[in-house]
């Protein structure tokens, strides 16, 4: 059951627009020049604000303006240094680091069981994805296979998280462009999904639910009814959003043709996710490098044509429909079984058994104090988060804590597209562009 929406995104699998590397060279020329990116240090920008820069018509005045880090529309603590010619942005530079939490250093200090609590707070709008990538990397190093039911539970939770993250996008995108009621509608849908998460994991956000070995707890009785209760009103509500936004002339004027990027530029900049797909390049890890049980469910990859903000909005709206479709298939196909691997060295024993068995008590103690030992090696595991390819690279030294844990946050890499998207656009378009890139600063700064 899929929702058919009159969007500009065509849910098919077109062949890649690029056939060899030489097509990328044209993009490299202007991406590596100083045409769009303002590569000045902070002190330089302060000293030179209001300098006279030569323009085509002779000497013109450029102004350096600062947007953020405390700003209602910059999606968290993002600072944009803009070089303006009137109201038109000539060059810009995103300045980040205002949320740097040292999570990669903290990750070296926490055991693998605790690791999920740390990484989950990076992308706080879709925390389960980072937990999943971390757990997958740990399981690759351990060489263990997670049971069937755990895979399907993980897939269910991740797709529900994709729904809640895209709802957050809908809400903030709407509000940034002035459709303030969209903010309330988006949060209303999110509340329903968060209530489902609270029922299953105990928390509304930052769940620490997907752990190496499986998931933390089984789905409670009545979960399928709860999922249906959440999903059933959604198609009608998506129609409402369509009426409110997609067909509306003001929405189209503000988003179509704004923030255009090509597939070659995206590939050169390392961009993944809805931004890459909006250019026509159909790449989705769930279909192309499947993990969990994505090859057992049917879904379409949503692709755009023009690479503008409207395409990115339409892709995410269509992806909501696709996630609903996947979750309905999971409802039918969920197998019975263990929710986590029964390997005693990795998963703690059930609490009741600690009273009975000395061995269980010792395992419990060891796992929660020292952590289970992971064989030495290095590995990389990636998932398709709502923002792009989210990967975790772990180097292990054989102890209970990761030696090096690096998270490839998609927003960190995607933010590099901002100066190129914003070139020669108005400040009002900046808000639309930042919103369509949908960065989450937690995973940008880590």
């Amino acid at each position, binding site marked *: 059951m899929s929702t058919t929406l009159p969007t500009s995104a065509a849910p098919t699998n077109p062949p890649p627009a690029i056939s060899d590397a030489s097509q990328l060279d044209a993009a490299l020329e202007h991406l590596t020049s100083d045409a769009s990116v303002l590569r000045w240090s902070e002190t330089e920008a302060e000293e030179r604000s209001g300098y006279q820069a030569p323009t085509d018509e002779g000497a013109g005045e450029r102004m350096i303006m600062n947007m953020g880090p405390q700003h209602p529309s910059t999606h968290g603590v993002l600072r944009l240094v803009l070089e303006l010619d009137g109201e038109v942005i000539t060059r810009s530079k995103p300045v980040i680091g205002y949320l740097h939490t040292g999570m990669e250093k903290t990750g070296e200090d926490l055991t693998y069981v605790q690791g999920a609590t740390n990484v989950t707070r990076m992308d706080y709008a879709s925390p389960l994805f980072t937990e999943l990538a971390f757990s997958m990397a740990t399981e690759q190093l351990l060489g263990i296979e997670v049971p069937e039911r755990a895979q399907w539970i993980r897939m269910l939770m991740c797709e529900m998280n994709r729904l809640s993250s895209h709802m957050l996008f809908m809400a903030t995108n709407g509000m940034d462009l002035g459709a303030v009621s969209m903010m309330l509608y988006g949060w209303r849908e999110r509340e329903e999904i968060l209530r489902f998460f609270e029922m299953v994991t105990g928390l509304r956000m930052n769940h620490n639910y997907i752990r190496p070995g499986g998931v933390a707890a089984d789905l409670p009785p009545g979960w399928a009814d709860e999922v249906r209760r959440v999903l059933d009103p959604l198609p009608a509500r998506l129609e409402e959003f369509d009426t409110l936004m997609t067909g509306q002339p003001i929405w189209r004027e503000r988003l179509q043709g704004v923030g255009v990027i090509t597939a070659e530029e995206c590939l050169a900049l390392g961009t993944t996710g809805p931004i890459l797909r909006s250019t026509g390049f159909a790449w989705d890890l769930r279909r192309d490098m499947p993990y969990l049980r994505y090859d057992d469910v049917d879904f379409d990859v949503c692709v755009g044509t023009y690479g503008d903000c409207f395409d990115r909005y339409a892709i995410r709206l269509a992806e909501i429909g696709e996630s609903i479709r996947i979750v309905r298939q999971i409802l039918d196909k969920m197998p019975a079984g263990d929710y986590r691997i029964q390997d005693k060295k990795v998963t703690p024993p059930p609490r009741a058994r600690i009273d009975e068995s000395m061995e269980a008590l010792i395992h419990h103690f060891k796992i929660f104090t020292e952590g289970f030992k992971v*064989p030495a090696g290095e590995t990389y595991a990636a998932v398709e988060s709502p923002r792009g390819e989210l990967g975790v690279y772990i180097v292990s030294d054989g102890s209970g804590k990761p030696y090096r844990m690096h998270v490839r946050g998609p927003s960190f890499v995607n933010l590099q597209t901002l100066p190129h998207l914003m070139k020669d656009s108005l400040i009002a378009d900046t808000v639309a562009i930042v919103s369509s890139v949908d960065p989450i600063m937690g995973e940008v700064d880590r």
Partner: protein
Amino acid sequence: MSDVAEDATEVVAEPEPLLIHGHPATDDGDVVVVFPAKAELLALATQLRTDGYWQCLDLCAVDFLTHPTRPVIPESVTPERFEIVVLLINHSARTRLRIRVQIGEDDLTCPTLFRLHPGTEAMEREVYDLFGIAFDGHPDMTRILLPDDWEGHPLRKDYAIGRIPVQFKNSIAQG
């Protein structure tokens, strides 16, 4: 280290000796890892780009100061304290490839991949910020995550985590 389990330092699979564009490499069945010398990094990345590895997904660094062994490395490659790890992806073949470059403590520089993959700009700045490895030819080699006047490079193993003792504040609880 006494708390490392006995079987933890055994390698999972025996790597086959292999050469990719003339550089030693390993293949554990999952992913190919290539070990070029520092000066050859750009040439290798260019050749790989022609092969289909169009996108650089990630660039990060690892400090092996306190690591007891080293993740699988061919015998012809001399391990140094730092490694730069570059992750490339080939969309048509649906595979990823890792490049690991050894960086010695005496020469903390590495050629930049910016001219080939402009997306490495922010990644290289992050490595410079957190490890202190400078990239030759990078257009803006400044700190990105920490304040400009920060001293030290936090992700190095000889930089402490900076934990402070927990103090209980003089706040008045109210239910």
